[in-house]
């Protein structure tokens, strides 16, 4: 490589998709680059001109427009454009203009095609939105599958190892010094290839067994053996081991199946550590399962409130370990429901048994199993139709208050819109709830639905589950036949739109304005949830979770083929971004929120987020077209 081209390849090597290229490919690009300077305001690509190069911004800034002149994107140093055209017919579809004095590196088409052929990552990057989102979402899933925490993560030190000729007394001393509860016994040679390995000096050893604390009791002291007995004489020949890349779960199964408490962990044939059952239990204590059982062991609101830090710790760990948004969302929802149930149990213990049957309904993100760490409470009470307000309401009001106050104490803040069972309006018998829903669907206006759309995500949390099911059936039956309702919902779903993308350290809006940060819930996940809900209502799906709804939608002809997958990928990516930024907030001791600051967004995340915003934006446009206000409402 000529040193003189370092300038170019080093610059490119810092930006995606070039950052993933091999040195050879980077050299090949730098060799062939052509350079041109564009003054502020001058055109770089004209509509329909024939394009023969990929454009790379070395310095300056560029705006890309749709053919009608609408702003498509604003790009800065290290960004590329023109690849869509190169992948199609080489006619410029999106013209580009320099908005600052700009230096462009042109990468000839032949080089571009070679990069697409030889580097899958590059090809994925420059192809349309879907493949990139798909790849990002799949990578998340893959890393999660692989990572279901490998057992090597639990190892904190090398195993204590002794030779067969060591006396049991010396062995015991070594264990005490190392504070180890087990040691591995080695001998020279390699007659058992399963356990033979070479040490750093090239000598061949094989592991012939393990001696644990309890072996000292049962095999040595109880048998009255001399302290000078060689460990080789007492070591058990039964050797159960596990590979270092096995999951914690597999290790636990192996222990249970073989009834052992210690497992030597091997990397290939070499012992790298020993795990004890207690290591696994300690690990589990930090996980969601333990947390849930702990919730049910609490007997006071204060006790529950003290678990809040554990919830945050479990959340951080899940995100760090690569759980996808569905896993995190459902784990946090399970935890939230557990808090709610425990509070209801405690309330019933305090107030006595309920006078009439009831169902405690959850709404919003908890109903969808999509909770994040930043959440408020949305709930309601569906009472039996035997309910007589004068006789029974005092009980349920008190019950609702205990739960609502308790949830607030545990970090689930009061609902600002007052969607809580403490609100008389949302503490009603089933027949009233049916009327509510019928009325919302039969006489919709966007204004009325603005505050009630949250009830269209509904699930039972405690009590008479079938009350909620009755309502879900009613909705699934009526909504698809209510075009006016769908149109009103669709109009509301367009109130919140995604930004266009990022430009340097700003969020760029559709009109080209800049902002310093973006609320990823308001501008990404929430509009997506709204949009998915409408399609789900239209196809009569009873699913509450957005991914399950998208599955149901995908089984109908409602959207173009592949569209529901595309929306799934985009939604997953938006959710993960939001979760990751909340995790960073927690790690840096800040109050987690839904905002992300562009300077904390990695380059590859930027590009994928932009794609996700684009998918959302297009889907919103389709929504308007798919669920128009019926004719009479347009006053024709």
């Amino acid at each position, binding site marked *: 490589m*000529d040193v*003189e081209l370092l300038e*170019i390849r080093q610059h490119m090597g810092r930006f995606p998709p070039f950052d993933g290229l091999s040195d050879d490919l980077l050299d090949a690009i730098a*060799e*062939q680059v*052509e350079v*041109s*300077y564009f003054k502020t305001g001058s055109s770089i690509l004209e509509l329909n001109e024939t394009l023969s190069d990929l454009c790379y911004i070395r310095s300056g800034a560029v705006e890309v427009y749709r053919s009608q002149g609408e702003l498509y994107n604003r790009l800065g140093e290290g960004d590329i454009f023109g690849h869509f055209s190169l992948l199609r017919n080489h006619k410029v579809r999106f013209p580009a203009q320099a908005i*600052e004095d700009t*230096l462009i590196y042109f990468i000839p088409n032949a080089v571009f095609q070679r990069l697409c052929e030889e580097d899958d990552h590059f090809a994925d990057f420059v192809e349309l939105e879907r493949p990139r989102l798909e790849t990002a979402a799949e990578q998340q899933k893959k890393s999660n599958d692989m990572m279901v925490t490998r057992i090597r993560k639990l190892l904190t030190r090398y195993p204590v190892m002794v030779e067969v000729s060591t006396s049991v007394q010396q062995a015991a001393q070594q264990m005490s010094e190392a504070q180890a509860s087990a040691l591995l016994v080695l001998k020279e040679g390699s007659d058992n290839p399963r356990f033979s390995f070479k040490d750093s000096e090239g000598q061949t050893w094989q592991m012939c067994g393990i001696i644990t604390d309890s072996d000292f009791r049962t095999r040595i002291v109880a048998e009255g053996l001399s302290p000078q007995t060689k460990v080789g004489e007492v070591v058990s020949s039964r050797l159960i081991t596990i590979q270092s890349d096995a999951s914690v779960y597999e290790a636990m199964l192996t222990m249970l199946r073989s009834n052992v408490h210690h497992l030597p962990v091997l990397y290939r044939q070499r012992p790298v550590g020993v795990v004890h059952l207690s290591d696994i239990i300690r690990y589990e204590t930090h996980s969601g399962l333990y947390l849930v059982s702990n919730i049910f062991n609490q007997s006071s609101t204060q006790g529950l409130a003290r678990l809040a830090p554990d919830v945050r710790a479990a959340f951080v760990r899940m995100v760090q370990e690569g759980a996808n948004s569905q896993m995190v969302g459902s784990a946090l929802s399970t935890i939230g429901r557990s808090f709610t149930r425990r509070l209801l149990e405690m309330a019933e213990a305090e107030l006595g048994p309920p006078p009439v049957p009831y169902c405690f309904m959850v709404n919003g993100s908890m109903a969808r199993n999509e909770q994040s760490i930043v959440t408020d409470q949305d709930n309601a009470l569906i009472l039996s139709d035997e309910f007589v307000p004068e006789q029974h309401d005092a009980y349920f009001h008190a019950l609702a208050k205990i739960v609502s106050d308790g949830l607030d104490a545990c970090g689930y803040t009061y609902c600002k819109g007052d969607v809580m069972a403490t609100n008389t309006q949302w503490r009603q018998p089933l027949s009233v709830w049916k009327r509510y829903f019928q009325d919302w669907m039969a006489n919709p206006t966007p204004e009325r639905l603005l505050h009630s759309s949250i009830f269209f995500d509904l699930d039972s949390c405690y009590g008479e589950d079938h009350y909620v099911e009755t309502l879900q059936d009613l909705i699934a039956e009526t909504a698809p036949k209510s075009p006016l309702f769908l149109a009103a919902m669709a109009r509301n779903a367009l109130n919140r739109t995604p930004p266009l993308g990022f430009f340097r350290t700003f969020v760029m809006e559709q009109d080209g304005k800049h902002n310093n940060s973006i609320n990823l819930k308001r501008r990404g996940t929430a509009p997506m949830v709204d949009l998915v809900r409408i399609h789900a209502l239209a196809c009569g799906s009873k699913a509450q979770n957005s991914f399950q709804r998208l599955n149901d939608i995908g089984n109908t002809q409602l959207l173009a083929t592949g569209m529901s997958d595309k929306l799934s990928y985009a939604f997953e990516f938006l959710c993960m971004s939001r979760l990751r930024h909340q995790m960073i907030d927690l790690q840096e001791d800040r109050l987690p929120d839904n905002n992300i600051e562009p300077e904390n967004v990695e380059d590859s995340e930027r590009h994928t987020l932009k794609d996700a915003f684009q998918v959302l934006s297009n889907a919103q446009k389709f929504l308007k077209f798919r669920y128009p206000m019926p004719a009479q409402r347009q006053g024709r």
Partner: protein
Amino acid sequence: MFGIRPRQKITQADWAGYMAQRAQQADSSAIQQFFSTPLPDPETPIAEVPMVALDMETTGLDERRHAIVSIGLVPFTLNRIKLAERRYWVVNPSRPLAEASIAYHHITHSEIAQAPDLDVILDEVLAALAGRLVVVHFRSIERPFLDAAVKARRGEGVLFPMIDTMSLEARLHRQTLWARFRRWLGRPPVSIRLHASRERYGLPAYQGHHALVDALATAELLQAQIATHYRPDTPLKDIWC
């Protein structure tokens, strides 16, 4: 800073005539070839002129005492700088390298020791320049050094028209009324060195003092200057010297 020797100013009102005359007198075939390759007419719009950015690193600033160490060139037009056609040579200056100049242009003794004499590559250099308008930043280095080096080896020198991005900058920043006013106020003059000039056009900072990188930097600077202060149809005669 090294002092720059005041030199006799070279101006050629009629470059075409001069070149034709030199072609006739030339002894060496490479030089004859160089001078007989026609240059663009002075009236040609700059957008149509094939150009080549040239930069040399030298052991010092005086062509009588110092020598060329490396030569870099990049062919280009107002539209595109063709890196794929770049050329770069390290040559043996046959004069001792001062430590200071090593630090300056990063070419070391061992690289030089293996390098050929300029004479070996001279034909290639002239062929690469022929027919293109040479663009340099500060012609008072490239012009006398190349002329002297060729004269020393072939008995006849080479002189040809150039576009000097530094003198274009000087026209803008040193010779205006405003510049004189600044000087009268005692303000330091605007820097017209390559890096400082590029900065004014929003061009990125490159690792300087490598002949090829500087040639590329010069080509980019000319594109920026034309885009900012001239027009694509500005005739060549307004820019060259």
